[in-house]
C-alpha cells in the first residue's frame, strides 16, 4: 500500500527518489527512501522513516532507563555494506522518575552505503528488516517491518539528491578530530570527559549545552551532565550509572545546544 501522502514530512512524488511501501506495525509507520540512482565509486544515503502515532514515541540509539533502540538489519548485494545508523538529535522523556531518549515526531534514520568502482550490477536492491518499540506513559508496543527500495545506476547529480524531509532534521556532526587530549576518567561517583577544543570548535560550544551519552549503561540518565567550556578547555561531568561496570575504551557523547540548531558528536578515550 502506498501511503506516502500520510507522512507529516512526506516526500513530494519525485523522479529522483525511490520509496518503499509504508508499513504500519504496532504504534508506528515505517518506510525506506533512497535516491533513485547511484554512481559507482560513490556513497548512497538511505533513510528509514519512522513515524509514531500521536503522543507515542520511538527511541534513540541509547533508549535511556527503559525502551529499545530502533535497529535495522540490512540485506545488500555482495560487495556492499551499510554504515552505522545515524540518529537525529533526541528529546528527553520522563515517566515515573525514569528517563528515556527518543522522538515523538517522525524521524529519518540514515545509513551510507558505499558503492565500489568495480560493482558490476546496474541495480541495487536494498532490503531492511527493521525492529522498533513505541511507548507512551501507559505502555509499549513493538513494531517491525521488512522494507525494500531499488536503486539503479545513473547520473551523479541524481545520486546526490537530498532526500526530502531529511534536510529538516539535525544530525550530530562528528568533530572528534578537533579535540586534543580527549579523555574519559572516573572521579568517584562521577564520569568526567575533558579535552582541548580546536579554535573553530569552541565557537560551537557556546550557550546552554546538554550532553547525551550514546552508550546505555555508563551514566545516570536522570542526572543532567554539566557541560562547561573555559577558554578552549571542554569538560563534561556526569554521574556514573549504578550499572557502570568497567570504563569502555571509548565514550561517545552528543552535545546539543538549547536552540537545537546544530549538534556535535565527540568521542573520548579511556584515560
Amino acid at each position, binding site marked *: 500500500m502506498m501511503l506516502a501522502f500520510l507522512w507529516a514530512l512526506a516526500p513530494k512524488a519525485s523522479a529522483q527518489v525511490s520509496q518503499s511501501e509504508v508499513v504500519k506495525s504496532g504504534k508506528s509507520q515505517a518506510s525506506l527512501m533512497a535516491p533513485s540512482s547511484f554512481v559507482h565509486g560513490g556513497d548512497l544515503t538511505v533513510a528509514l522513516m519512522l513515524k509514531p502515532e500521536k503522543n507515542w514515541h520511538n527511541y534513540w540509539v541509547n533508549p535511556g*532507563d*527503559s*525502551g*529499545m533502540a530502533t*535497529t535495522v538489519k540490512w540485506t545488500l548485494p555482495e560487495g556492499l555494506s551499510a554504515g552505522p545508523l545515524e540518529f537525529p538529535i533526541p528529546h528527553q522523556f520522563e*515517566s*515515573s*522518575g*525514569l528517563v*528515556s531518549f527518543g522522538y515523538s515526531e517522525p524521524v529519518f534514520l540514515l545509513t551510507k552505503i558505499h558503492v565500489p568502482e568495480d560493482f558490476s550490477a546496474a541495480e541495487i536492491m536494498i532490503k531492511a528488516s527493521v*525492529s522498533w*518499540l513505541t*511507548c507512551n506513559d*501507559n*505502555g*509499549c*508496543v*513493538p513494531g517491525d517491518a521488512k522494507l525494500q527500495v531499488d536503486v539503479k545506476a545513473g547520473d551523479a547529480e541524481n545520486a546526490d539528491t537530498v532526500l526530502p524531509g531529511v534536510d529538516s532534521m539535525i544530525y550530530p556532526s562528528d568533530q572528534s578530530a578537533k579535540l586534543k587530549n580527549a579523555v574519559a576518567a572516573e572521579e568517584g561517583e562521577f564520569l568526567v570527559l575533558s579535552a582541548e577544543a580546536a579554535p573553530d570548535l569552541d565557537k560551537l560550544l557556546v550557550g546552554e549545552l546538554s550532553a547525551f551519552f550514546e552508550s*546505555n*549503561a555508563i551514566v545516570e540518565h536522570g542526572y543532567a551532565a554539566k557541560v562547561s567550556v573555559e577558554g578552549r578547555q571542554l569538560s563534561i561531568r556526569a554521574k556514573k*550509572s*549504578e*550499572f557502570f*561496570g568497567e570504563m569502555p575504551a571509548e565514550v561517545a557523547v552528543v552535545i546539543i545546544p538549547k536552540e537545537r540548531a546544530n549538534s556535535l558528536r565527540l568521542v573520548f578515550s579511556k584515560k
Partner: protein
Amino acid sequence: MESAELKMFFVQKTNLTTLMKNRFTNLFAIATAFSMITLAGATEVGEKAPDFEAKDVTGKVVKLADLKGKTVVLEWINFGCPFVKKHYGSGNMQKLQGTAADDSVVWITVNSAAEGKQGYLAPDSAEPALSKEKWAGAHYIVDASGVIGKAYGAKVTPHMFVIDKEGVLVYNGAIDDKSTTKAEDVEGATNYVTQALAELAEGKEVSVPTSKPYGCGVKY
C-alpha cells in the same frame, strides 16, 4: 550511605468468596496485601538487600529476613510489557522459575504498577492471569504503592535481583544480554540470572554482579 528509614503500610481489598473454587485457586484465595516495608536508600550489590514484609496474592506472608539460608530471586513484572511477553511467551521465565524451585531457590515476582496504571493487577484477580501465563514462581506480590520497587530501585520490567543465603544482594540487572522484544533472541543469550544462581550453587562469586536492565519502565 544515607539510610532513610520509611515504614509503609498498605491494605488492599479482600475477596475471599469468589476465589474458593478449586485447589489451585485456593492457593490464590486470600488477596489481602499487607506490607510493612523498610526502605533503606538505593540498593547496591554487595550490601544487605532491603528487608520487606508483604502478603502474596495467596495470602502468605513473605518476609525477606525469614528467608535467610535460602537464595532468593526477585523479578519485576508487567504482563502487558513486550519485554516480559518475550520471556513468558517463549517459556523462558517459567523454565527459570521451575529450575529455581527444584534448587530450593525462592522466586518472588513483584508487580509495582500503581492502581490505575497499565499492568496493575488487583490481588484478587491475579490468579487467572498467573494461571494463563503458567507462572511458576513461589510468591507473587502486588506492590501497588511501589515501596518494594523503590527500595530496590527497580526500573523496568523485567528487572532481576538475586539475594544470597546471607541476605546480601549479589545481582542487580537485566535477565540476559539481548535487549530486544523478540522471543527468538532468548536462545543464544547469556542469562545473567541462571549464571548467578549456578555460580552461587558452586560457592563462587557472581561473575557479572550488575548489568543494565532492559525493558518497559515500571509504572509506579
